[in-house]
C-alpha cells in the first residue's frame, strides 16, 4: 500500500519522516526548492492493518492557494468598487504554490491513501482541505474513505507514532469557518482599501512632478483590514486618553508609628483604609475628628500572621509567551512567535500556537524536567544554567517529599494543543539564533517554574484604630523562594520589619499627616498591553496578533517610540484621522472598535460547532459591509476634513 503524507512545512515533514521511517528516509527533490519528498516504509497505519506501507511524506509551505477576484474583470480601477461585494471568488496559485501543487498531484497519483499532517488548528484544517483538493486532481480514487488526518501537537517520537497509529478525519466545519473568514476579509478588505486609498492618497501625498518624484510614496496604500482597524483603535483610544488627561488632586491620611523597641529609631508608615479621596474638605473632616477625639494614640485592633504564597505562573499560552517576551526580554511579538515557531520546527519546543493553560493529566512532565536536568552531560560547562535547578526539582526535599509539583491548572483549553513546553534540552552547539536561544530559555524557565512549588512566606498585617478610622501596615518575610529561583522575572522580597506591637496596645503616633497627590496619565500603549487587549477582545488569533501589529506599523498608522528602555506605540496623524473619520460617520463600532470583529469571531465559532452555516454568516456580514460602504462612500469628504483637522491640532 502506498500512502502520501503532507505536512504544513518542510521541517515538519522531515522530522515526522525521520520518526516514522526509523531514521532511514530518503529525500527527493519536489520541483520546489524549499519542499522535499521523503520516502520511507512504515507499518503502523491501522487503515493498512499495520502492514508495511510505502510512504512519501511531503509538505506545502503554508497556504497552498489564495482567494482573490479575477484580475481582468475586477482588478483595481477595472470595476466599480461596490461590485466586489458580490463578485465571484477564484482560487489563485502563485508561481511557487503551483510548483507545490504539481508535486502533490504527481505524488498522489499512485497513492492508496492520503494523510494530512498540517498543524492542528483551524488554519491547518483549511490547508489540509486545500491539499485534499489538489491531491484529488491527481488521483480520482482518493475520497472520504481513504483520506485521514494526523492529530499531533509536537514532534516528540512517541507522540508522532501515536498520531500515525490513530488517524482522524478532517474537520470540515473548521474548514468552512476559515473559508468564511477569508471571504469576508477579502471582500471588506479590498473594497475599503480601494475606497480609502482613492479618497485619501491625493491628500497624504499629492502627486509630485519633476525629478524629485518619490516612487515609493506614490505606491502608498491605505489599507483596511477587519483586524487592523480595531488594533489601531486601541492605540488611538489610549493616545486620546493621555492627550485629554486632566490630573485630579486627591488627599489621604498617613500615620507614622514608632517602634516600641528603643533601639529601632525608624518609623513605619500605616496606610489609611479609605485610601485616596478626591475631596479635600472630606479628608480634613476625618483628619480633624481623629485628632480631636484620639490625639496621638492609635490602638492595635488586629494583628495577624499567616502563611502566604507567591503563585508560580500558569502553563504557557501563545499570548502569554508574546506578552512576556515583550515585557521581560524586549523581544517583539512577531519576533518571539517566529522564534518559537522555528524552535518547534527544530524539535526543541512544543507547538507554540495554543490557548491552553492546563496540562493534560496524562502528560509525563517529569520526563520533560529530566531532559532539562541534562543528566547525561558530565561536563558541567556544557549544561544549561538551569540544569541544576531541574535536577534538584526531581529529588526529594528534606521532608522526603518530591519537589516536583503538578502545574497549576488554568481554565482555557483549546482541545488541540497543550501549553507551550520544551521538548528536548538545548545542546551548547545547537544551531539557533540568539533570539531563539533567549525565547527557548524563557519557555524552559517558565515550564520549570510551573512544575515547582509556589514561593512561600509569612505575611503579617497590623491594623490600628484611630478614632474609628483604620490604618494598616503589612510586612512579608520570604521563607522559601522555590520557583522564584528559576524565574527571575517575578519579584518577591522580604519587606521592612513591622513595629513590635501587641493586640490592644496603644501605639504612639509620631506624625499624622494629611497628604495630597494627583493622578497621573496612563502610559502610552506598549506592545504587550496591546497583545492582551487584542486577545481579550477577540481581535486576531494568537497566531495572527503579531502580524496585525506589524501591518499597521508598515501602513504608517502607528509608529514605535522609544522612551528609555520602554518602547511605546503611538498613532500617526493618518492613524488618528482614520479612527476619528469613521467615528464621525457614525461607524465607530464597526471599524475602530472591536465589536464587529468580535461578533464575526463568535459566528465563526458557531460554524465550527455546526450551529451556523458558512452561507448564513457570510451573507449576513457581507450585507453589513455593503451598507457601511454605501455610507462611507457618500460621506468620504468627512475623512479628508478630519485628516486636516487632526493634522492642524495635533502637530
Amino acid at each position, binding site marked *: 500500500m502506498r500512502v502520501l503524507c503532507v505536512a504544513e512545512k518542510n521541517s515538519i515533514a522531515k522530522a515526522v519522516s525521520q520518526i516514522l521511517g526509523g531514521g532511514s528516509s530518503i529525500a527527493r527533490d519536489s520541483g520546489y526548492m524549499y519542499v522535499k519528498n521523503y520516502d520511507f516504509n512504515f507499518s503502523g497505519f491501522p487503515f493498512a492493518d499495520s502492514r508495511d506501507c510505502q510512504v512519501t511524506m511531503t509538505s506545502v509551505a503554508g497556504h497552498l492557494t489564495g482567494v482573490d477576484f479575477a484580475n481582468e474583470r475586477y482588478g483595481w480601477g477595472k470595476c466599480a468598487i461596490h461590485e466586489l461585494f458580490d463578485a465571484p471568488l477564484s482560487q489563485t496559485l502563485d508561481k511557487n504554490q503551483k510548483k507545490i501543487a504539481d508535486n502533490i498531484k504527481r505524488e498522489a497519483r499512485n497513492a492508496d491513501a492520503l494523510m494530512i499532517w498540517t498543524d492542528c488548528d483551524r488554519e491547518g484544517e483549511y490547508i489540509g482541505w486545500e491539499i485534499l483538493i489538489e491531491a484529488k486532481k491527481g488521483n480520482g480514487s482518493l475520497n472520504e474513505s481513504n483520506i485521514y488526518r494526523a492529530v499531533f501537537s509536537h514532534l516528540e517520537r512517541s507522540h508522532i507514532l501515536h498520531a500515525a497509529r490513530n488517524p482522524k478525519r478532517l474537520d470540515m466545519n473548521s474548514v468552512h469557518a476559515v473559508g468564511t473568514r477569508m471571504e469576508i476579509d477579502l471582500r471588506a478588505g479590498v473594497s475599503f482599501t480601494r475606497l480609502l486609498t482613492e479618497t485619501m492618497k491625493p491628500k497624504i501625498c499629492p502627486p509630485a512632478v519633476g525629478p524629485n518624484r518619490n516612487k515609493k510614496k506614490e505606491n502608498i496604500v491605505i489599507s483596511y483590514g477587519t483586524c487592523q482597524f480595531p488594533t489601531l483603535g486601541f492605540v488611538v483610544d489610549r493616545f486620546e486618553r493621555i492627550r485629554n488627561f486632566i490630573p485630579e488632586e486627591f488627599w489621604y491620611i498617613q500615620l507614622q508609628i514608632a517602634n516600641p523597641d528603643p533601639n529601632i529609631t525608624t518609623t513605619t508608615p500605616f496606610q489609611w483604609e479609605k485610601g485616596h479621596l478626591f475631596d479635600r*474638605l472630606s479628608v480634613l473632616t476625618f483628619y480633624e475628628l481623629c485628632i480631636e477625639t484620639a490625639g496621638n494614640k492609635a490602638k492595635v485592633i488586629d494583628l495577624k500572621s499567616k502563611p502566604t504564597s507567591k503563585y508560580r505562573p500558569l502553563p504557557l499560552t501563545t499570548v502569554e509567551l508574546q506578552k512576556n517576551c515583550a515585557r521581560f526580554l524586549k523581544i517583539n511579538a512577531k519576533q518571539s512567535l517566529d522564534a518559537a515557531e522555528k524552535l518547534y520546527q527544530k524539535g526543541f519546543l512544543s507547538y507554540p500556537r495554543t490557548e491552553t493553560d492546563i496540562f493534560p493529566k496524562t502528560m509525563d512532565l517529569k520526563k520533560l524536567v529530566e531532559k532539562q536536568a541534562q543528566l547525561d552531560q558530565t561536563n558541567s560547562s556544557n549544561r544549561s544554567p538551569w540544569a541544576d535547578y531541574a535536577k534538584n526539582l526531581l529529588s526529594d526535599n528534606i521532608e522526603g517529599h518530591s519537589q516536583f509539583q503538578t502545574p497549576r491548572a488554568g481554565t482555557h483549553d483549546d482541545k488541540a494543543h497543550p501549553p507551550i513546553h520544551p521538548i528536548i534540552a538545548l545542546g551548547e552547539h545547537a544551531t539557533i539564533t540568539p533570539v531563539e536561544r533567549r525565547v527557548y530559555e524563557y519557555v524552559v524557565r517558565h515550564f520549570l517554574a510551573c512544575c515547582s512549588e509556589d514561593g512561600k512566606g509569612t505575611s503579617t498585617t497590623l491594623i490600628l484604630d484611630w478614632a474609628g478610622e483604620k490604618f494598616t501596615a503589612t510586612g512579608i518575610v520570604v521563607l522559601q523562594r522555590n520557583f522564584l529561583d528559576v524565574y527571575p522575572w517575578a519579584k518577591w522580597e522580604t519587606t521592612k520589619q513591622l513595629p513590635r506591637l501587641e493586640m490592644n496596645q496603644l501605639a504612639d503616633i509620631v506624625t499624622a499627616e494629611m497628604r495630597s497627590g494627583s493622578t497621573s496619565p496612563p502610559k502610552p500603549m506598549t506592545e504587550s498591553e496591546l497583545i492582551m487587549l487584542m486577545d481579550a477582545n477577540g481581535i486576531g488569533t494568537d497566531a495572527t496578533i503579531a502580524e496585525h501589529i506589524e501591518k499597521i506599523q508598515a501602513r504608517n498608522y502607528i509608529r514605535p517610540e522609544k522612551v528609555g528602555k520602554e518602547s511605546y506605540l503611538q498613532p500617526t496623524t493618518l492613524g488618528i484621522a482614520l479612527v476619528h473619520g469613521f467615528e464621525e460617520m457614525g461607524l465607530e463600532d464597526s471599524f475602530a472598535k472591536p465589536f464587529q470583529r468580535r461578533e464575526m469571531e463568535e459566528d465563526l465559532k458557531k460554524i465550527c460547532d455546526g450551529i451556523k452555516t458558512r452561507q448564513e454568516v457570510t451573507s449576513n456580514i457581507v450585507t453589513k459591509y455593503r451598507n457601511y460602504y454605501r455610507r462611507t462612500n457618500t460621506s468620504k469628504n468627512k475623512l479628508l476634513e478630519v485628516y486636516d483637522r487632526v493634522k492642524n491640532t495635533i502637530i
Partner: protein
Amino acid sequence: MSIASIISQDITKVTNITFNKTGLNAREQLIINAFENEAWLNNLPDKTNKVVEQKCIKVDRDLLFQVLMVEQISISKTAQIDDYNIKLDPKNQKVDRLRANGTAISNDVSKYKVITQLDMEDSDNFSNGANNNTNLSNNSLNNRKNTVYKITLQAKSGDIFFAINTSPLAWVSCMLGSKLIIKAGTLFNRGVFVLQESSVVFLGGINRQWNDNKETKLCAYLKAKLDQEHKANINLKGSRKRKAVQ
C-alpha cells in the same frame, strides 16, 4: 397637611403647615419633630463664615434634610465619567483598557461589552505597573466598604450642608430629593455632618424633576467640575510662577 407631603416635595417650599399631632405613631412623631425643630445653626450671625468655624460639635436635636446630591469621592471624576460614558454611549467607549472589575460595565447590550473579567492576578503578581491603573478606582470589591460619599443636604430653611460617611450607608444610592433625619448626637465639623448608619433615619421620597436623566446630568456635572478645577489649577500654577519671577 400630611407627613407624605413633607416626604414627597421640596421641603424648602413647604410653608405654614400645622399638623394634627394626635394619634401619630413614633415614626410620624419623629418626622414632625425633626421638621419643626429649629434649623441647624440658624441663628449664627454671618452664617457662611461662622459655619466653617464650628469644629467638632454634637448635634443636639433631630434635623430633617433633603438630599441634593450624592458624590462618590473614592473614585476620580475621570473614572466616573468613563463609567457613565460606557453606560450612556457604549459604542463610543474607550477600549484601550482591561477592566479588572466587571462593575464598570453595566449595559444590557452584550455586543458592546468590552472584556468581562480578566485573570489579572497573574499579571499583577509579576507586573511592575505594566497596567497603569492610576486613574481607575481604588474601589475594588473588598474595598467597597470603604467607599466615601459626599452628600449635599438642604434644610427647609434652604441652608446647605455637606455630609460624609465613616461606614457604609445602605441608602446612599437614593433618589435625589430623598428626605432623611440626622439624629441628635451626630458629629458636625466645619459644615460637614459625619454620618454612620445609626445616626440617620432614611425616609425616602423623590423629586422627579431632579431625577430625570439623572445619569446624563451627573456625567455633565462631573465633566464641568473637572474642567473648572483644571482651569483653577492652571491659574494657580500661573500665579505661582509669576510670584517666583518677582
